[in-house]
């Protein structure tokens, strides 16, 4: 890898490469710049040079410039990777968030609004209207005998039944 054979005159694309090194391009620009770096030797050298300038400023002076060539030569003996990264859906978290919000609101409304099932027992505990009480009394009086038959087992009639031929 050499960096001294670069064209010293900067091109208009070098400005974009500088911003690429800083991670300051939007997605479309960054993809285009990366494509240029990977497809154009001059842009690739410029990109390398800008990385080097940054490292030099941060004090990373220790370097082996031919290390990249050594690694790339060694990689020629390695199989080419074909393991695409699983697709990342940026909308998925938003969908989960929306679903969770809707569920929370629904649950809140369901809890807050009184429903018929919960009102029914309360209504049953209320004393019947005076008119209804007057109408039901004859009905209860007429069925009182049946009510005693159930609650008083001593009065239940027991009939012994024998099956013909059961002793055979």
């Amino acid at each position, binding site marked *: *890898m*050499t*960096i*001294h*054979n*670069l064209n*010293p005159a*900067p091109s208009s694309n*070098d*400005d974009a490469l*500088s*911003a*690429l090194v*800083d*991670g*300051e*391009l*939007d*997605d479309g*620009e*960054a*993809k285009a710049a*990366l494509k240029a*770096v*990977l497809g154009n030797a001059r842009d*690739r050298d410029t*990109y*390398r*040079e*800008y*990385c*080097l*300038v*940054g*490292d*030099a*400023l*941060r*004090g*990373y*002076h*220790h*370097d*082996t*410039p*031919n*290390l*990249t060539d050594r*690694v*790339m030569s*060694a*990689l*020629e003996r*390695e199989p*080419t*990777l*074909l*393991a*695409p*990264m699983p697709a990342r859906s940026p909308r998925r978290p938003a969908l989960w968030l929306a679903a969770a919000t809707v569920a929370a609101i629904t649950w809140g409304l369901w809890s807050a609004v009184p429903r018929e099932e919960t009102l029914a027992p309360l209504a049953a505990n209320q004393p019947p209207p005076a008119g209804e009480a007057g109408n039901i009394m004859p009905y209860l009086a007429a069925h009182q005998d049946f009510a005693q038959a159930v609650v008083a087992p001593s009065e239940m009639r027991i009939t012994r039944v024998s099956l013909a031929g059961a002793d055979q």
Partner: protein
Amino acid sequence: MSDREIDLQLVERVRNGDKQAFGLLVDKYRRKLLRLLSRMVRDPDEIEDIAQETFIKAYRALPQFRGDAAFYTWLYRIGVNTAKNYLATRGRAMPTVSDQAMNDDDEPDERLMAKDIGTPESELLSKQVALAVNEAVEALPEELRQAITLREIEGMSYEEIADYMACPIGTVRSRIFRAREAIAAKLRPILGTSEDRRW
């Protein structure tokens, strides 16, 4: 697209069969990795061998890289393990590297590590580079010097620099680009003398 996302893009390209993209990652991180390894291994030839092995191991393990951590954090762990194994097979212990620096799950803090170890030649070249960079930065107009310093040394975003310098983001981008070009022009004669020289 952030720096981390750019690395992820490059990783994705490598995983789709583009080996050249891995070369960019090597160019981007080799100095950082060499600096790390130089704190664990003394011999410069061994450092280079371990660095090369680290990158090859990283390439082979790339299908397992999920992008949960930054690429360099992942590479850092591979580098440390490779160096440890290298030293263990030779019955040597790691030199003074603090546990705090080695076990950090986030961006490793190399400031916590021991002092640089290098050959006299590499130290001389390092001094030449440092001198050239200092001279280049000193020679920059004030607004360019401030912009490149805030970006490269302080790690500020273009937006933060624009706020600080009270100028549009486009101006910041232009100033940083011009500063980079000026510094690169000063470094070219030194770095171009021999591509095999370590600096």
